[in-house]
């Protein structure tokens, strides 16, 4: 190509986001009608129209179907979208800050740290306080990313392979902590603890959705305000300083916001791996590395991605269900291997 590349404009961001919104709407419509109980798309539409008192439309669903739709599928789809969006944005930020395209909240041990926080909240009863579980999950996630950061920079130069090694070490430590907590936990609590280990969206409740929305909006706002800084940080911290970015403050704010959204996602859905790895990478291949587009695009695409994964988890063994974490790991781990091979 000999002509200058078109630089990023607001119009392009709108166009891409609109496209991804259409995708998101399509995937959510599909997830709504997929499931063991057969509810057709036309019936769903009529039901929604009737619910908003659209003239001349009567609700074709019976009571059980309506319950399945609004009390089970809708919350679950909403939560899948929110958790997918949160993990993807966190992945974008971790990848940029660590300058490592293989970074992801799960691989780095941030999800593990958040799960330990959440489990401690349940076991100690702190979970009954408002924001108890997500609060401790956030603290656990932040602690692990700071550990990874410290460990990978311990030799002076921050090296890509050191980051992943540090992630493995932190992850191993938190996994051991989780096992320890599981083994000392009594009967009635064990079920909610096991839930965190699998990564599952089945228990979506209204409060979970509200909480994830609030954390995601707050975290994403901070990330998006620093989108240009993230671009510069891709070229290294020294360069970022030379181009006028106050690196320390910016990095801390971004680490906090990425841990915040990870903590929220983990506290409502458990450990769902590899979403934050695959989504940013695919979006980057499609639309480039500029974070002003990469962040909102990953938000939307990540939402659609986890909705689709969760739909697969719901229907593949119907009427039994898979935890969605199994689905994402089954496609994510080979993808990780592929990325590693390509970057080697």
């Amino acid at each position, binding site marked *: *190509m*000999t*002509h*200058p*590349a078109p*630089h*990023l*404009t*607001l119009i392009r961001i709108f166009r891409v986001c609109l496209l991804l919104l259409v995708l998101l709407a399509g995937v959510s419509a599909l997830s709504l009608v997929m499931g063991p109980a057969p509810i057709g798309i036309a019936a769903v539409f009529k039901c929604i129209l009737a619910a908003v008192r659209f003239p001349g439309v009567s609700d074709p669903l019976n009571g059980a179907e309506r319950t399945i739709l609004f009390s089970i599928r809708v919350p679950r789809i909403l939560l899948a979208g929110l958790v997918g969006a949160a993990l993807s944005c966190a992945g974008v930020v971790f*990848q*940029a800050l660590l*300058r*490592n*395209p293989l970074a992801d909240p799960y691989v780095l041990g941030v999800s593990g740290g958040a799960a330990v926080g959440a489990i401690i909240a349940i076991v100690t009863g702190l979970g009954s306080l408002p924001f108890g579980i997500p609060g401790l999950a956030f603290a656990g996630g932040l602690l692990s990313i700071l550990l990874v950061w410290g460990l990978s920079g311990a030799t002076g130069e921050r090296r*890509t392979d050191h980051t992943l090694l540090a992630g493995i070490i932190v992850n191993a430590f938190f996994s051991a902590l989780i096992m320890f907590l599981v083994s000392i936990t009594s009967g009635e609590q064990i079920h909610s603890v096991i839930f965190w280990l699998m990564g599952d969206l089945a228990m979506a409740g209204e409060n979970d959705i509200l909480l994830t929305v609030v954390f995601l909006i707050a975290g994403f706002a901070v990330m998006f*305000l620093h989108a*240009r800084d993230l*671009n*510069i940080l*891709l*070229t*290294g911290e*020294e*360069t970022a*300083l*030379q*181009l*006028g*970015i*106050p*690196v320390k403050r910016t990095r801390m704010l971004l680490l906090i916001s990425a841990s915040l959204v990870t903590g929220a996602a983990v506290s409502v859905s458990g450990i769902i791996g590899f979403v934050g790895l695959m989504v940013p990478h695919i979006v*980057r*291949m499609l639309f*480039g*590395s*500029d974070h002003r587009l990469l962040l909102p695009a990953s938000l939307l695409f990540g939402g659609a991605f986890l909705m689709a994964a969760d739909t697969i988890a719901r229907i593949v063994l119907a009427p039994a269900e898979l935890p969605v974490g199994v689905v994402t790991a089954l496609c994510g781990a080979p993808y990780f291997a592929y990325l590693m091979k390509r970057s080697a």
Partner: protein
Amino acid sequence: MPILELERISFKYAEKRVLQDVTLTVARGEFFGILGPNGSGKSTLLNLIDGIRLPCEGEIRLKGVAPGKMQRRDVARLVAVVPQEASWVFPLTVEEVVLMGRTPYIGRLAFESERDLTVVRSAMEATDILLFASRLMETLSGGERQRVLIARALAQEPEVILLDEPTSSLDIAHQIRTFDLIRSLSRSAGLTVVSVTQDMNLASLYCDRIAMLEEGRIHFLGRPGEVITEANIREVYGVNVVVDHHPLTGLPRVSLLGSHSPGQESRWESGAAPQL
């Protein structure tokens, strides 16, 4: 007032003295060269000037203000740095990288203005990289990447440009073109240039003044003719060279000598020649 003043600067890195008692002033529009063996503290000196590292002792003033006390954004409008090499882990296009030079001028939520794009375009023109503006950094050769980094620094519209061995991966045509460009900016727009280099002939040709560093101290400071001499190079680098005059410019010209060159037998007196 000189644009850049260093007063009795010392810098230690983990108990190791890197710079010691460096005093230096650079005038606006000057083309200043820094020579010295590997590990003599040249790159650290650049880091101190742009405030990325802080001196342990002494004072640095950029237009009268210590860079360590300024906002990074204000430093970046004043000083641009061309690093030796950068790594490109993520796919970024040439234009995206050059646009990064405008960072200190663009607001948090603003997009690039027409003026930003004009500045970027002319920086790419000047460095001869417009043809591959849309290519990814990782697909370029080392020399091409170097020119992109120079374009990014020019896009910052700095008053001072710091170059860390800017020509090390360039062919001679682009070495000359790059230094010609930077020199013409320093003459016409008053750009102050501080360049670390290993190439004494280039330094001799372009620099107004040169500092020769050894083990963190300025050993020699002055015009190229005063600094680049056989005796000084023997003292600082411990090698024999021939310095004569460039046939056209009359500036010092350095010719290297190998141990097999005529007249070099005396270097290895009384059987001290290296045994292989």
